């Protein structure tokens, strides 16, 4: 049954090609189908034809599938152009096809885009961009991408020297590429002394049957011991007050983040942070351009539900902060607090917290305090307001 269906499929495609020949050609086609099943191969896929080195058949199948949006077919066409299998080699066209497939999330294509950027074939050499595409392929557990990316971080080639990230990516490659361990053994494993804002390399937004996701990669120098990365994805088109931010943390330099909905204008920023402090990139759009977008800071007021004076004061202060571009949130928190107080989670937010504290009467100690146990986000300042109850 299956072979009969295959014959029909081939009959129609060959018939179309020979349409000018009319009935004779059709008869010939049928004869071939009956008499010589092995002569004209049927391929279940372009990959099948490619594996059998039937470049013409692969070209035919993939051209049709690529026009319907198949990333695998674009990759395959890229291979045919890249290696000169369907005419003279055309690395520029191959780079373009690989890039299209990579933007649809195809890891092999992304790897080839990276190699071409890395070696200047089909495009100008751009090591930084190569690192970005290696990173996304590495995220998909593509061992050679992990290995190449690890080398770049080990050598500081296109990215800052970073033995932490080199060890991380090479470590993932070890099972498939044992020499990765040799490179890990030669790494000079040093932590950084200072935090530095990561450099966002690549952002790809993917939408398929699943939830939308942002896949992104960044470069960074080694951070202090225990440092990690925090990623925030927001919609730059949303009103500042209504801007939902999706966050995640990782020690790697690439991540895939499922999003609740597809942002109209996705913007991303990446922090390098320890428990004490952080350094953060600018908000960056999917085109790699920096997006001038406030706010970078959030002030969260906590007031008891029966503290009407406190609430009134918080709202006046909050609207003033909002006018200067700071996101403001109000939480009703009954119970424990006895005094007004201002807290921040990271040293970089001490300035804002101190400024807020100076405007707030009756703050114990007169200043702001860093607290790591309150779950404060980078850029977030917590203001507890306790005014005397009116009774």
């Amino acid at each position, binding site marked *: 049954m299956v072979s009969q269906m295959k014959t029909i499929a081939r009959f129609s495609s060959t018939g179309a090609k020979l349409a000018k020949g009319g009935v004779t050609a059709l008869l010939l086609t049928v004869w071939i189908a009956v008499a010589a099943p092995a002569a004209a191969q049927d391929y279940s896929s372009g990959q099948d034809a*490619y594996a059998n080195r039937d470049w013409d058949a692969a070209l035919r199948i993939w051209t049709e599938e690529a026009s319907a949006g198949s990333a695998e077919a674009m990759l395959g066409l890229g291979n045919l152009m890249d290696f000169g299998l369907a005419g003279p*080699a055309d690395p520029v066209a191959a780079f373009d096809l690989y890039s299209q497939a990579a933007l649809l999330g195809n890891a092999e294509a992304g790897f080839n885009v990276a190699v071409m950027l890395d070696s200047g074939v089909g495009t100008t050499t751009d090591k930084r961009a190569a690192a970005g595409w290696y990173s996304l392929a590495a995220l998909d557990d593509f061992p050679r991408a992990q290995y190449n990316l690890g080398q770049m971080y080990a050598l500081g080639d296109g990215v800052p020297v970073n033995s932490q990230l080199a060890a991380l990516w090479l470590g993932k490659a070890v099972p498939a590429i044992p*020499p990765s361990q040799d490179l890990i053994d030669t790494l000079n494993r040093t932590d950084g002394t200072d935090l530095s804002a990561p450099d966002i390399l690549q952002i790809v937004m993917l939408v398929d049957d699943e939830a939308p996701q942002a896949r992104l990669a960044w470069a960074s120098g080694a951070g202090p011991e225990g440092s990690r990365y925090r990623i925030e994805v927001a919609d730059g088109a949303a009103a500042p007050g209504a801007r939902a931010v999706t966050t995640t943390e990782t020690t790697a330099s690439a991540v895939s983040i499922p999003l609740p909905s597809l942002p109209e204008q996705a913007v991303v920023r990446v922090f390098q942070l320890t428990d004490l402090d952080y350094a953060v990139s600018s908000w960056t759009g999917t085109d790699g351009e920096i997006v001038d977008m406030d706010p970078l800071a959030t002030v969260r007021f906590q007031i008891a539900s029966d503290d009407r004076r406190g609430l009134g004061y918080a709202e006046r202060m909050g609207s003033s902060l909002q006018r200067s571009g700071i996101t403001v949130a109000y939480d009703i928190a009954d119970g424990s607090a006895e005094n007004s107080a201002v807290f921040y989670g990271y040293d970089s937010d001490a300035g804002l917290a101190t400024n807020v504290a100076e405007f707030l009467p009756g703050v114990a100690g007169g200043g702001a305090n860093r607290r790591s146990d309150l779950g404060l986000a980078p850029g977030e300042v917590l203001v507890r307001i306790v005014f005397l109850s009116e009774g």
Partner: protein
Amino acid sequence: MLKSVLLAVTLSLAALPVSAQQPVPAGVDPEQEGLRILFDLGTSGIRPDQREILDQASRLYRDGNPVVMIVTGSADTVGSASENLDLSIKRARVVADGLVARGIPIERLQVLGRGNSELPVPTPDGVANEDNRSVLINWR
């Protein structure tokens, strides 16, 4: 005489596809000189300082490439011609193993041993020229 010895020795090696044919396939870019890995006198082990050449070679190899990567071993002219042929093949196979370990599909490799024939730097017998103790990796 050398060429027939070369053929005989290569045919006796089975694990990797080894060939004695002329290695330059269609589509070779003469501008691309390939990458050369150097060896110490009389040895076929990869020196630590040469590992990065293997890394470079594997790094440039694109996924889906059906084009064969050619790994050609040579030996300097110190010692007998047949020993040097043997040594050149050992070197080429060590390099091929290193490439396979780095994720290059084994069926994409063509391994050649040239002994003292077609040396990178032609010398008389008995000359310990380092460039001749080498394996050339090229493709396309």
